[in-house]
């Protein structure tokens, strides 16, 4: 139970830092929700009303989705994250803070359906797992279930990404990374020129990403030293994605799942 609680604390330390960074990014770019912004609150309310003909969501969106109120939602979330570094999760206060954090993340996900990415999805999975498992008076089975869920979802995410790339012509012909890196949205001039100059690096990188992602769940079953190789690959992969592609939130969201993977691996091998 103590070890399991430590694993949750480690996961939260990485996850919380990532969500804190992402929340301050929203605060710095709050204009995106203004009437001139790409995610104009007025427009997002129309979308919500259109998609979810529920009175509750209509009222919620009308109450919260203004630039000014969202700013408070993000500010409160920052405080919430910090408090959860201090207050144990499975106390009543800790659990209420987890719920508040989950609600806050879910609210912002409603308005950022365009522009959200895999890191947002992983963030949502992790916070819901915490809310469901870190109830006051929790037990070992419940905590274990949460850790297994995070580890399995993480492995599934890599393997689905790998298989999707394996069925893609651009990835199999090893031009995908050069194409992605040459965009200003996700790329870098230096990386694009480098890949244009050294074609064999394209083959190496594309097949490396495809195969390692597809085989990633092996890290649950392999002996820990070999599993660590996969995790080190993942660490390097997400770090390079953050540096070259600017995808910093993926790094934190996915690194937060690695303690769960290590724990599940150890459980499997000590069973």
């Amino acid at each position, binding site marked *: 139970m103590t070890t399991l609680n430590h694993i949750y604390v480690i996961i939260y330390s990485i996850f919380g830092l990532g969500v804190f960074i992402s929340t301050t990014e*929203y605060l710095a770019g709050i204009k995106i929700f203004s009437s001139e912004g790409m995610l104009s609150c007025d427009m997002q309310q129309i979308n919500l009303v259109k998609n979810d003909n529920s009175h509750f969501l209509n009222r919620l969106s009308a109450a919260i989705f203004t630039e000014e109120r969202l700013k408070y939602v993000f500010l409160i979330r920052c405080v919430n994250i910090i408090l959860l570094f201090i207050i144990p999760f499975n106390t009543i206060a800790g659990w209420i803070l987890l719920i508040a954090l989950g609600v806050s993340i879910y609210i912002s996900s409603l308005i950022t359906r365009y522009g959200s990415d895999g890191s947002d999805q992983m963030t949502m999975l992790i916070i819901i797992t915490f809310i469901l498992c870190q109830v006051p008076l929790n037990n070992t089975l419940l905590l274990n279930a949460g850790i297994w869920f995070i580890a399995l979802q993480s492995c599934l995410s890599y393997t689905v*990404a790998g298989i999707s790339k394996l069925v*893609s012509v651009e990835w199999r012909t090893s031009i995908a990374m050069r*194409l992605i890196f040459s*965009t200003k949205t996700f790329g870098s001039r230096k990386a694009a020129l480098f890949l244009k100059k050294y074609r064999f690096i394209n083959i190496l990188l594309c097949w490396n990403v495809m195969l390692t992602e597809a085989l990633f769940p092996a890290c649950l079953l392999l002996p820990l030293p070999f599993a660590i190789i996969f995790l080190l690959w993942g660490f390097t992969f997400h770090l390079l994605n953050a540096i070259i592609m600017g995808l910093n939130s993926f790094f934190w969201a996915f690194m937060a799942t690695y303690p769960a993977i290590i724990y599940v691996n150890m459980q499997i091998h000590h069973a």
Partner: protein
Amino acid sequence: MAQLIYTLSIVIIFVLWFVCTIICQFKGKSAAFIQKYIDVLRLIPSWTFFAPRPGKSDYHVLYRDKRPDESLSEWTEVELSEGRNFFDFIWNPRKRNKKVLSDIIQTLIITFSRYPKDQDRTFLMYTFPYIMVLHLVTRQHSKVNDPAFRQFVLAESPGYLEDSDPNFILLSKFHELN
């Protein structure tokens, strides 16, 4: 007893959630059913990052105005953050603008790719992504005095390597400005 029931319920929820996640990675009827009737809170993730079609274009929004005398202004591009700062790998508040535009345009492309090229695509004007772009464009400052109508164009370019010309994706009708 209550604790046991709660624990088993959560375990069942995790198992179902995981199975639904696997099913939803395939674009079949089962996935469509789950997404429509079960995943009402949209909590089932899609894990196909940059695949099968990797994002290989930068998207641009340009607009021009028409005056009451029918004369036209020059095209102006909506400024979205471009390029990268050194510290973006730690803190990158500008990443959303480009991603939002990219998502909107990709949704539009998917929508109109479902219809034959010779078919009238006026219906696109009533789709939410189109209205979002129109909203963005109409909120931009005009470079001319007394603009009456505004038209926008969506375009894609290959980015840094520039080994092909930009493509026009969509040219809107002129929309009246209030």
